[in-house]
């Protein structure tokens, strides 16, 4: 089964978080495709009700039940497995919970119509989180008598970095409210899964100050909670700039040799009669400034001591093809 080593061998629940605008959902989707290589089955779970996965994979809106949405990344030796997805909402999860533990499905549906579910998750926000993480935990543990585990891996497109600690630290959140009782027991089970070595939290970021800060804060927060493991840092939307290191800093300082650029353009058959060299020099200089800033942010990320993976900016938009490209990039870097 394990044809090659990855950085996360043995991990079965990949929680993906990131600041808004960093491409968290896209990365979660690409990771699911990458994990589903070699014929593995992967479940992708969305918990914020945005239907971001459906949009990403260009499929109709997803329900609470699992749907097959894509075939995993193919490799030379194996065809890709299946990627399934579902959108977990607290209300459906609560109805399912009531059914599982009390055989109360009809009552649950009726109560939902009365707004009781909304009410319950409102007066106990931790309940909401325990129900959502509970769904992921259930999928991770689900077994089939013949084949064993149903899913080789589960990827959760989780809430943003600012809320991830609270979201995952369900046991203590719920214990404030439900001091005893069944939901408490449920929370404890969920917590065992979240805090097991089979679960890691990956952080998606771009190399800008605030997302990097939130990533570092998020990793520190997880460490302070004890037992919830930080996974890798996925640096998204990188744009390579092929300048020798010495020239990069010079270009960032506005020192781009326009004479040389004009010569180069001329030899490539582009005439510089419209100030092209000056305009390209300005573009190069601006990008070099960005790159220098990004290097500093990368150095800050390196202090976290987590594996970093780089995903390129897809200038032409993502699309399904782009998603598979990102999946291969993750696989090549052994993130999956």
């Amino acid at each position, binding site marked *: 089964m394990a044809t090659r080593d990855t950085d996360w061998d043995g991990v079965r629940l990949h929680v993906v978080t990131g600041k808004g605008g960093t491409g968290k959902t896209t990365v979660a989707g690409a990771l699911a495709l990458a994990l589903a290589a070699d014929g593995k089955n992967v479940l992708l779970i969305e918990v914020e009700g945005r239907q971001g996965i459906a949009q990403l994979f260009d499929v109709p809106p997803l329900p609470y039940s699992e749907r097959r949405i894509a075939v995993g990344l193919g490799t030379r030796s194996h065809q890709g497995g299946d990627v399934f997805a579902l959108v977990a909402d607290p209300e459906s999860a609560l109805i399912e919970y009531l059914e599982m533990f009390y055989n109360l499905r009809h009552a649950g549906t009726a109560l939902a119509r009365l707004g009781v579910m909304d009410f319950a998750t409102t007066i106990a926000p931790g309940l909401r989180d325990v129900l959502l993480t509970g769904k992921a935990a259930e999928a991770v543990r689900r077994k089939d008598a013949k084949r064993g585990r149903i899913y080789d891996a589960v990827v959760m497109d989780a809430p943003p970095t600012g809320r991830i600690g609270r979201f995952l630290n369900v046991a203590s959140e719920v214990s404030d409210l439900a001091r005893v009782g069944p939901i408490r027991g449920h929370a404890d089970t969920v917590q065992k899964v979240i805090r097991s070595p089979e679960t890691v939290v990956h952080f998606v970021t771009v190399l800008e100050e605030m997302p990097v800060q*939130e990533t570092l804060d998020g990793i520190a927060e997880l460490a302070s909670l004890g037992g919830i493991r930080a996974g890798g840092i996925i640096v998204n939307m990188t744009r390579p700039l092929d300048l020798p290191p010495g020239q990069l800093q010079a270009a960032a300082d506005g020192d781009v040799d326009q004479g040389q*650029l004009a010569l180069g353009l001329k030899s*490539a058959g582009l005439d510089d009669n419209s100030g092209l060299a000056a305009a390209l020099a300005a*573009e190069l200089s601006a990008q070099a400034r960005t790159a220098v800033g990004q290097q500093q942010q990368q150095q800050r990320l390196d202090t976290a001591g987590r594996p970093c993976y780089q995903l390129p900016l897809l200038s032409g938009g993502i699309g399904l093809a782009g998603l598979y490209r990102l999946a291969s990039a993750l696989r090549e870097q052994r993130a999956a």
Partner: protein
Amino acid sequence: MADRRPPELDVDRLIADRRTRIIVCCGSGGVGKTTIAAAIGLRAAERGRHVVVLTVDPARRLAQSMGLTSLDNTPRLVPGVRVDATQGSNGSAQDGNGADSPGSLHAMMLDMKRTFDEIVEQHADPDRAAQILANPFYQSLSSSFAGTQEYMAMEKLGQLRRADEWDLIVVDTPPSRSALDFLDAPQRLSRFLDGKLLRLLTAPAKVGGRAYLRVLNAGFGVVTGVLTKILGTAVLKDVQTFVSALDTMFGGFRERADYTYQLLRAPGTSFLVVAAPEDDALREASYFVERLDQERMPLAGLILNRVQQLPAAHLSPARSLAAAEVLQAAGAGAGGGGGGGMAAGDGQVDDAARLLTIAALRLHADRMEQAAVQRRTAGQFTAAHPLVPVAEIPAQAEDVHDLEGLRLIGDAFSA
């Protein structure tokens, strides 16, 4: 299809107009809302307005971008605002009175729990207030209920408006996953606190007596039963105590929420929807524009942030890449020594120039491609909302973390 150009959003005119009293910046997370709000505040202040910027972002971005180490629940004066600059050049749009007096900029960050506590303290006698503040359910509600931050942002906006110390309030809305949460959450919270379900559930004795109410009560017996199963009795007890303690405050709550909601519709309020030129952000922006229209709330326009604007835009990505390939081939030919010297027009160019030019051309092609996608995405928004004015803010090479950076963004507001 020819590009239909949207009307231009003139932010400078909006902030120069003294009738503009509130500007609400909204949009989905990660689009640069906080920075835009700060840039607008700074620009208005440097044009003679007395501005307060209210931010609700716990990431303290505004604090950093304004060079402050921390913001708390009270407005603080932002140092370094130029009071003399730019008055003359754009003064024509201003209506004379006050245009020559120097402006000022204050900034504050919302502390939602403290704001909530203050409302409780204002509306209840000290004993009762203490009882509420100590209630575990209140503590959970005031620090983690999904709508509390939005509700308290609106509450604070109301307070600032009533204080009347500033002639322009710029609000940066909470970093909700969806731009719409900002409009819905306050009502959701007030509906919840006011809700029949909550009241019946927590005070079943009150509805006894009449027959039909007894039936209702029996129904709620089931509800209570299930909730007890889910939550445990302790929670319900906390909620019960909380509601009875809060009972006298409900009227006040609703009144305040209504006041702020009206404030958002009042003349003098303008909404700016901020988006990045990306699918997700513009989809949210679209919903928001439609929603504001339904609510009859005044939309000033869309601020399209982080737009690729390239000095060499006249060089197409295809030509740029082709030229890079020519140079690449020339280099490969020279390196291999296989008689490829004739590939380029004149083989005089040295390696350093060649590599530099290749890097510049590839970068240019990549950014042009990205710019094209951005234009297409923005075009979809404009096609659906042709009347919404748009202002484009160029992508910045570096993070903004000082007033100079904010000024640079503000410069893009000059039409």
